[in-house]
């Protein structure tokens, strides 16, 4: 019981911190909004990690939704934020359904590589078809209305930040629920024994496909949010390093835990930004070193670390969520 308490406390503490952050330190607001958007994508990656599968191409869904928001906003002369988000999720899910039908046949390295290839194809497409996609400069995303209201930047950003926070909390809760449902439990079963799953009368491919679409939908939500917050989309959204970043954050936060997505994304953005600001020449070096240290010394990520420090929880309990 204490363990659950400590986990809740970590989340409550972070959320409380987030709520006051834009008031106390206004310059962090946009940074935090972006971190929240990323944490949604990371949550998607974590869903797949439950099944022991790692995608090095989930930036694909992030980018599809982001470009979807850009096209929508441009064609509507501004657009509406709710439409942006809904369209992002729908577009990402639809593509995931099609790509997924092929990709869920593969596991492990092949799964990772095929996702990578899919995202690189989309990346190349974004770069190549300049007259549609704006090439490497990307497309600007006009500031959408919020429930029909056109807002100034400052107000818009406040709403975006708190809206993003609500979305993330909602997504965390939903994902948590999903993972306790039969499909969610079977996602985790794919990791340990697909043969048995088949012999329970369950198609592991379909289970994985369900998880794949969910993970893409989360990435899509994150991508649409990111595009709206940034005001611009570029092919970089689909670049493999970004996919790697999502996996990186998932591990940093703690891959076994959905809360890890939020914690990891915040920690990552913090490290990356301050590394870029104060060690402009070597920020990749700093980031790489942090990653190495996490994997070698805290393979359960920040959430796992906080639990270990908190009350000496044994590792096997963590594996059970």
């Amino acid at each position, binding site marked *: 019981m204490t363990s659950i308490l400590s986990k809740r406390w970590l989340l409550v503490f972070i959320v409380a911190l987030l709520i006051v952050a834009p008031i106390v330190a206004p310059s962090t607001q946009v940074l935090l909004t972006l971190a929240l958007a990323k944490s949604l994508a990371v949550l998607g990656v974590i869903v797949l990690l439950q099944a022991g599968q790692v995608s090095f191409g989930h930036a694909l869904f992030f980018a599809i939704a982001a470009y979807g928001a850009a096209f929508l906003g441009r064609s509507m002369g501004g657009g509406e934020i709710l439409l942006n988000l809904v369209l992002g999720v729908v577009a990402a899910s639809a593509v995931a359904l099609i790509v997924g039908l092929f990709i869920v046949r593969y596991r492990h390295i092949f799964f990772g590589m095929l996702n990578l290839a899919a995202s690189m194809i989309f990346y190349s497409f974004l770069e*190549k078809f300049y007259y549609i996609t704006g090439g490497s400069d990307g497309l600007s995303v006009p500031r959408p209305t919020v429930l029909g209201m056109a807002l100034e930047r400052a107000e818009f950003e406040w709403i975006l930040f708190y809206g993003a926070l609500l979305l993330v909390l909602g997504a965390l809760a939903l994902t948590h629920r999903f993972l306790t449902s039969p499909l969610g439990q079977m996602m985790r079963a794919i990791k340990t024994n697909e043969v048995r799953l088949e012999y329970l009368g369950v198609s592991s491919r379909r289970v994985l496909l369900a998880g794949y679409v969910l993970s893409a939908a989360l990435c899509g939500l994150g991508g649409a949010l990111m595009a709206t917050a940034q005001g611009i989309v570029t092919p970089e959204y689909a670049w493999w390093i970004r996919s790697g970043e999502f996996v990186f954050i998932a591990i940093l936060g703690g891959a076994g835990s959905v809360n890890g997505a939020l914690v990891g994304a915040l920690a990552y953005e913090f490290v990356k930004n301050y590394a870029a600001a104060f060690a402009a020449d070597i920020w990749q070096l700093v980031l790489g070193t942090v990653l190495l240290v996490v994997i070698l010394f805290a393979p359960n990520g920040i959430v796992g670390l906080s639990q270990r420090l908190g009350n000496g929880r044994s590792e096997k309990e963590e594996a059970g969520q």
Partner: protein
Amino acid sequence: MNVQLFALAIVDGVSYAALVFLVAVGLTLIFGVLRVLNVAHGSFYAIGAYTTASVGGAIFAAGFSPWLAFPLMIVAAVLVGTLIGGPIEKFLLSRIYHLEDVLQILVTFAVFLILEDFQRLVWGVQPLFEATALNQLGTVTVFGITYTAYQLIFLPVVAVLVLVGLRLGLRRTLTGRLITAVTEDREAAITIGIDAEKVYLITFIVGASLAALGGALASATTSVVPGMGADMIVLSFAVVATAGLGQIEGAAITALMIGLGRSFAVYVWPEMQVLVPYLIMFGVLLVRPQGLFGGIEARKI
């Protein structure tokens, strides 16, 4: 498309394939033995190129024979493989073989990030170019088109030598046999006295040296710039996955397919050029999920 253009496309494709093969074969060798997909492989390629270009620039400026360019490439490749690849395997990778695939890949990803900055700190950001080796070999005219002998003849010959050398080395030498044995069954190899840790180290050094050799050879034809490793690694992944993980001959054939596909694309439909490797990969895996030459591992129940 007439016969002449067809022939030209083949010539162009082959010399490109040669370089891709050299890098991909190192990656597939390392995967075959260590079962680690090494994202940092692209860094060895880049560092090999930087080392060759910078050292070459210095010694030729000092008036040494331009023919030294060729031994220099080999020396640079082996040095990079040993001095950078060696410690990475010995002090880092050797500690993560028991971890999940994901974590292993992320460790190499971290190494890749670190090495990217390492390159910048050592060589700066200005493109380097050192074409002495290429200029030494002169040009060849085919169908009225001038080619450098380096790209037309030398690179493919090196690639074939490496392919044959690796094959014979793995089959005929004791070290090669030990590597093959460890690849097939690490534990069984230990029980007959093979020092698997050493084999891992040697394999990693050989694989990293091959990537560095690819970079060293490329440095004569291309500008050595920051970020060159990132592009190469994604391409090598595509080659390795298409060929089947750990397949050496497969990597050669896939590299050739990708090289030819790419050059034909330039002639026929330039927009498709960058998509060619991935389309080939999807096409192959759709028909053969385990890759062109890969075998299926069935679960024993």
